[in-house]
C-alpha cells in the first residue's frame, strides 16, 4: 500500500503507469483513473497555450495529504497522482490520478475525491494564452462545491 506523487514537466503514459501501479498484485480487482486534458476553449475563449506554475515542496505535501485522507476514508490499495507543470497546449495531458482497490466502489470514490481536493487544495496555477492575450485562470466556484460534497 503506497501513495505515489510526481510533479513533472514531461508527459506520461497512462497505460504504463497503471501497469506499474498494479505491479502484479492479484488483490487488485478495480482500477479507477482520471486524466485531465487541456481543452482548446475555456470560458468561451480559444486557448492556444497554457502555463502551469506550482509551489514546489508544498505541492507534494498537499498531494500526500490528499492521498492519506482518501486512504482513511476508503478501503483502497495504492494511489498515484501525476501533475504536469510548465508549458502545455491543447490536447496535452495535465493530471493523472489512479487508485486501486479490491472492489470498485472504493477506487471510484477515492479517485474522484482526490481530484476534487487536488483542484481546491494543491498549489497549482494556470495561465492561459488566448487571442486576447495572457490571463491567469480564476478559481471556479464549481470546484469549491465539488470538494464540499465530501464533508463528513
Amino acid at each position, binding site marked *: 500500500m503506497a501513495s505515489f506523487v510526481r510533479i513533472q514537466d514531461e508527459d506520461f503514459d497512462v497505460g504504463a503507469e497503471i501497469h506499474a501501479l498494479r505491479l502484479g498484485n492479484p488483490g487488485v480487482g478495480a482500477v479507477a483513473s482520471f486524466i*485531465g486534458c487541456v481543452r482548446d476553449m475555456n470560458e468561451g475563449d480559444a486557448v492556444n497555450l497554457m502555463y*502551469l*506554475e*506550482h*509551489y514546489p*515542496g*508544498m505541492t507534494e*505535501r498537499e498531494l500526500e495529504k490528499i492521498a492519506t485522507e482518501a486512504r482513511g476514508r476508503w478501503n483502497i490499495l495504492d494511489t498515484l497522482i501525476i*501533475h504536469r507543470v510548465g508549458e502545455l497546449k491543447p490536447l496535452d495531458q*495535465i*493530471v493523472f490520478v489512479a487508485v486501486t482497490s479490491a472492489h470498485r466502489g472504493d477506487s471510484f470514490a477515492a479517485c474522484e475525491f482526490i*481530484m476534487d481536493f*487536488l*483542484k*481546491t*487544495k*494543491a*498549489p*497549482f*496555477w*494556470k*495561465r492561459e494564452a488566448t487571442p486576447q492575450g495572457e490571463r*491567469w*485562470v*480564476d*478559481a*471556479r466556484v464549481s470546484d469549491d462545491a465539488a470538494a464540499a460534497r465530501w464533508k463528513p
Partner: protein
Amino acid sequence: MTIQLVFLARLRERFGVSREVLALSPPIATVATLLDQLRERGGAFAEELAANRAFRVAVNQEVVALDHPVKAGDEVAIFPPVTGG
C-alpha cells in the same frame, strides 16, 4: 527577526518579486500583522492584499488563518486561490 516571503502566480507578477527576506516589525507577529506591514508599501501590495481580496497565506507550506503566528525563519507564501488539475 527575519522570515522568507514567497509570492506565487498572479501575485508574483503583480509584486514583481518571487522571494524576499523580510525583517518583521513588530517582531512578535501574526499573519495579520505581517499583511499590515506589506500593505504599508502601497501600490500593488495595498491593492492585492486588501481585506476584501481573495488570497491565501501558507506558513511553512501549510495554509493558515490570519491569527496564525509568524516566527523567525518561517517561510510565508502568499498566493491566489489555486486552479490546478
